[in-house]
């Protein structure tokens, strides 16, 4: 009994520990501006929506949100089909150089993104892609490809080979097998991969700041960092913007929680 309650106490502590920064932001976002920097901090007596009004109505932040959404979605739509094709090929066919291909993709996985920034910047500059969504979409797709690729291989490996045989005998071409059998059966994996990619892009900061800092293509994560006040840092607006960026993601996560956990733990235990 004591053991159990102490476990619960511990869990509550951990949850509070993790959630407290976010609560802090939430509180800051609804404080009247005068109380934000007050020391020691106080619980606001009256709540104010002025920061939200600033962010949503009087700044270009909604535009940044739309940019984030479009770039994240485009990345998903590019990465998932590519990695699905690749995973199907690797899972179902043996060919010369297969190990080499897998090895190269693992290397891609291991590259730290900071090491890519300079080279990619030069490349995109030469292509004239700076401040164009294409630069981010391509970078994000390449960075996420190994993750989704291996995740989907796990899913496709679990589909019994007899499915393919049955489809072959029913007259399917390889593409028809891929389209009618493999893709629908790998759907849970595809959904969880898509969500992981989307979250990655939504939160990404480094490349977004480097390749597309212009207002027209600026992503929300960068937008928060670049909030400017006339004489001081507008902490209230920044907090409100952070909440606005996080909430859709949270709703999204709650909704698809099942798939995300499935995706991250697939292959962990024998089924």
């Amino acid at each position, binding site marked *: 009994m004591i053991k159990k309650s102490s476990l619960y106490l511990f869990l509550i502590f951990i949850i509070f520990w993790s959630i407290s920064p976010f609560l802090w932001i939430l509180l800051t976002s609804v404080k009247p501006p005068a109380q934000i920097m007050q020391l020691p901090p106080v619980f606001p007596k009256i709540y104010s929506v002025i920061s939200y009004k600033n962010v949503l109505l009087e700044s270009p932040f909604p535009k940044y949100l739309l940019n984030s959404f479009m770039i994240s979605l485009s990345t998903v739509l590019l990465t998932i089909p590519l990695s699905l094709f690749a995973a199907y090929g690797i899972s179902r066919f043996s060919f010369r150089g297969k190990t080499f291909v897998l090895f190269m993709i693992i290397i891609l996985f291991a590259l730290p993104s900071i090491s890519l920034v300079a080279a990619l910047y030069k490349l995109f500059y030469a292509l004239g892609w700076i401040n164009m969504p294409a630069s981010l979409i391509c970078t994000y797709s390449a960075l996420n490809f190994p993750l989704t690729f291996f995740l989907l291989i796990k899913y496709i490996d679990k589909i*019994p080979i*007899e*499915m393919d*045989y*049955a*489809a*072959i*005998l*029913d*007259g*399917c*071409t390889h593409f*028809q097998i891929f389209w*009618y*059998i493999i893709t*629908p*059966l790998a*759907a849970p994996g595809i959904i969880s991969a898509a969500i992981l990619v989307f979250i990655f892009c939504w939160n990404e900061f480094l490349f977004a700041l480097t390749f597309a800092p212009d207002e027209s293509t600026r992503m929300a994560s960068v937008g928060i960092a670049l909030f400017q006040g006339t004489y001081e840092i507008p902490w209230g607006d920044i907090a409100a913007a952070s909440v606005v960026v996080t909430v859709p993601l949270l709703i999204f996560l709650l909704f698809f929680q099942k798939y995300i956990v499935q995706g991250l733990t697939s292959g962990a235990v024998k089924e």
Partner: protein
Amino acid sequence: MKIRFQDLTKQYGNTTALHPLNLDIHDGEFLVILGSSGSGKSTTLNILAGLEAPTSGYLFFHEHMVNHVPPGKRDVALVFQNYALYPHMRVYDNIAFPLKIRKAGDSHQKVTKTAEMLGIDALLQKYPKELSGGERQRVALARALVRNPQVFLMDEPLSNLDARLRISARGELKKLQRKRNITTIYVTHDQTEALTLGDRIAIMDKGRLQQVGTPHEVYQKPRNMFVAGFIGMPPMNMARISISNSRSFSIGGVVVEFPALLPSTRDVILGIRPEKLTIVPPHSPHAITGKIVHREYLGSESISHVEITKNILWYVNRNAAEGTKTGDMAGLQFSPEDTHWFDPVTGVRIEF
């Protein structure tokens, strides 16, 4: 469809899965390929279906060599051991799938007709996971039959059913095949299925075809010791005997009088089916004497384990009513026409 295997082999790296196979399958025949795992029976089936390519040799459908014809163009249907139904499609779509891929007309009518024939028309809107084993098996059959294939292949389709369902499924399968008159190749490790279903049985072991024949032939005249030991439950009793003269032989050092003329070879293998032995009082004339060490009661019959010498244990299949018990000595009598003889070196059947 007439099918011919001509010197067909299959190798995986250094292991030979199939030694040169020569086999003719008649049009409309129900052929059962019987063997244990690793016998090459599934390889044979996969080559027939086109899922695997032979290493050498030829496969003919009628007079056409089909080695390089892809599976989808062979007009061959396969029922898998685990049915391989598409889990994301309803029963209706599962059955309609081969028609959809082949862009066959009036698929709706064909699907409903096939479903009616197999008695699954009430399940068409369900998903495979909502079905019982027997129902899944019927859906798999329906999916195979709906496009009216020339050749029907089955890979142990009944092994996932429970014993009681298997008997009725066997009957229905045979009835269905007769009605449609489709050339059927059925792979199994279950000799009961082989004996009850097959027009002919092909017995395989270690990648070699051991014998092809009607159920009666393979049971009554097994071509070698493997077939003799494989077909029949309990298996045929076999022992090496040495013939001392034309009227007596010795088995494990014990001399037994034989009621007929014996072959002139000195060393042979004698085989007698368990149901052809009669239990008589010990040391009766022309009987092999041994000790009953164990009895298995099976209801309508019982199987006695009789130890003739330390190394020779024979089974006797007798009416349960008979009054012997474990520990008794007994004589085993047989008539000369029920004996099988095999060469002790090659294992091949010897006819006198």
